[in-house]
């Protein structure tokens, strides 16, 4: 059924995560190939963000395996995910509001010289690089010394995207990428996704709204109550089919049912 062949970029098998007694993610299998855009859909609380945070290294999984480029990955920390080329644009954008654009772009991955126990930052170099990366994305974004709290929603989004571009993501996770944006900026993000896809980057798009992502995605994975309802190529199903998966957990023709699919549809 999957159109992509060959070794997947990301392969998550039997992934499980519980918070206290609540099973947030239960026995989930997901794959992503190079140059593929996969939309992970579901209601709030369906487990999609938790699943992606495990891939981003923000949560540790309780069980299951993850292979990146065919190699088993522990993903114990965000730093480990970064090393494997997994970048995430979080829904919150993960910006420190008291720091400026440059500081946020390099946050946690500063250019620095190691001197004894200290890592001395090369502020001038970082500023230089930040100016170049950000001007590529948004030429009108010039106030790089302004704390992020004083920036617009689009500018903040730009910083988060600039991180992924600068650190050369192989796998990009975008959590509700257009939720806080106007139509013009939403279109820019769509263009960006197509451009990154053409460069062979695998992209997970997390959304609770199918209309935002259906046209961009090659494939959808629908989750409900922590389980996968089903997986389908967007060419094989209609938006209404996918809505049925999200709302009812009903797996239509043309989709591969997962463990969360309703066993006897009415």
């Amino acid at each position: 059924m999957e159109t992509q062949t060959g070794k997947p970029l990301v392969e998550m098998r039997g992934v499980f995560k519980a918070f206290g007694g609540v099973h947030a993610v239960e026995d989930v299998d997901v794959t992503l190939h190079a140059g593929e855009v996969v939309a992970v859909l579901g209601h709030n609380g369906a487990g999609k963000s938790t699943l992606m945070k495990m891939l981003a290294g923000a949560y540790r999984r309780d069980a299951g395996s993850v292979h990146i480029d065919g190699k088993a990955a522990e993903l114990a920390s965000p730093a480990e995910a970064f090393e494997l080329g997994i970048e995430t644009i979080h829904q919150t954008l993960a910006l420190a509001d008291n720091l400026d654009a440059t500081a946020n772009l390099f946050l946690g991955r500063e250019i620095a010289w190691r001197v004894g126990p200290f890592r001395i930052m090369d502020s001038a170099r970082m500023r230089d690089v930040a100016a170049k990366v950000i001007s590529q994305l948004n030429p009108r974004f010039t106030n790089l010394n302004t704390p992020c709290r004083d920036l617009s929603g689009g500018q903040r989004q730009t910083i988060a995207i600039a991180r992924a571009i600068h650190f050369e993501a192989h796998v990009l996770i975008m959590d509700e990428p257009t939720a806080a944006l106007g139509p013009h900026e939403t279109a820019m993000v769509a263009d960006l996704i197509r451009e990154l896809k053409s460069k062979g980057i695998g992209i997970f798009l997390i959304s609770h709204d199918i209309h935002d992502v259906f046209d961009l995605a090659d494939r959808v994975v629908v989750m409900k109550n922590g389980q996968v309802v089903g997986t389908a190529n967007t060419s094989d199903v209609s938006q209404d089919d996918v809505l049925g998966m999200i709302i009812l957990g009903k797996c239509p023709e043309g989709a591969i049912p997962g463990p969360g699919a309703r066993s006897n549809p009415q």
Partner: protein
Amino acid sequence: MTTESLDPPAMNVAPRDSGFNVRTLSLVGLLFVIAVTFHLLSGGLFLTARNLYNIVVQTSVVAILACGMTIVIVTRNIDLSVGSVLGCVGMVIALLQIQIFPQEAAWNWPLTVVIGLALGALIGAWHGFWIAYLGVPSFVVTLGGLLIFRGAAFEVAQGKTLAPFDPIYRLFGGGIDGALGVGPSWMLFVVIMVLYGLGEILVHRRQTRLGFHSKARAKVLRFALVLVAAAAFVATMNSYLKPRSDIGRGVPIPALVLLSVVLFMEFVTRFTTFGRYIFAIGGNIDAARLNGIPTRRTVLVAFITMGVLCAIAAVVTTARLNAGTSSTGELLELSAIAAAVIGGASLSGGRGTIAGAVVGALIIQSLESGMVLIGASSSQRMVAIGLVLMAAVFADKYLSGEE
């Protein structure tokens, strides 16, 4: 301006180089107002070499603590235990130096200082572990520490006062011989100004090479101001004479200790990744974590730093009093927090400067000393300092345009 430039001029301003820190400068202004007011009220006693020398020495302990308190507050934590930790470490140093180790041994006092610093680091790590790894709020952990280490300070010698300290150790307190002297003070001034000048030139060159517009005029002006201020400071300290002599005292050693602490902490907070991380954690700890910052380790290190600074302050305090007492440092945590907050540290995290904390400590001590000079009581002093604390934070909020 017919086409939209990819590299507009505004983009080329070098990072962290907007000339002067307005907030710190306005605090310095407040300090001047306080000084001049007390000078007039006390009939010309405040702005004398002798009083300024005293204030510098008296400020050093609170200022050292305020430097550490600032980074703790920047991470959106608090340390209520610093006065008790200071007292406890001071008592351990006193016990070792006066009762345990042979008094005449040359290694006695240096070893006790090293042990004191190690103990400070250990206590800081103990607090940091509870806060960063066990997730107990810092207010609670360090409130516990306030009680634990005040009790421990008593237990070390069952409440006895231990004295006297080694004469060399006592120099850290800035007593009658505890200053550099005239010649070495000027030498120190020259060395520091040369290093500062060279540093500015290096940064300027690098920024120019990378194509930034480095504000050379502002930098020269800043250098000149620092030069004049430092020269005035050294000249003032030199003009305070030792009793019954015409020998100038020079820069007091506690001020030298404070200067070292300030330079180190400025370096750490401005130029290292650790400094960046404490601000990121205070600004948005979730963002810090998602970006791979080792948040727990960073908070742990912040508290270890605070512990070491408590130990340094303990050395200065005990050397100054020439005695270890179990009540040493009582209520000092409040002065340290007040100094950091007056200096611009925000209790909601992510904001604060070392220089501001030092100026904050100077403001508090100037109020304390000035009010004694005009014969005010300790209760009146408390009222005054409380009001200034509130006014400073309000003015800061107002000036920075929040709410």
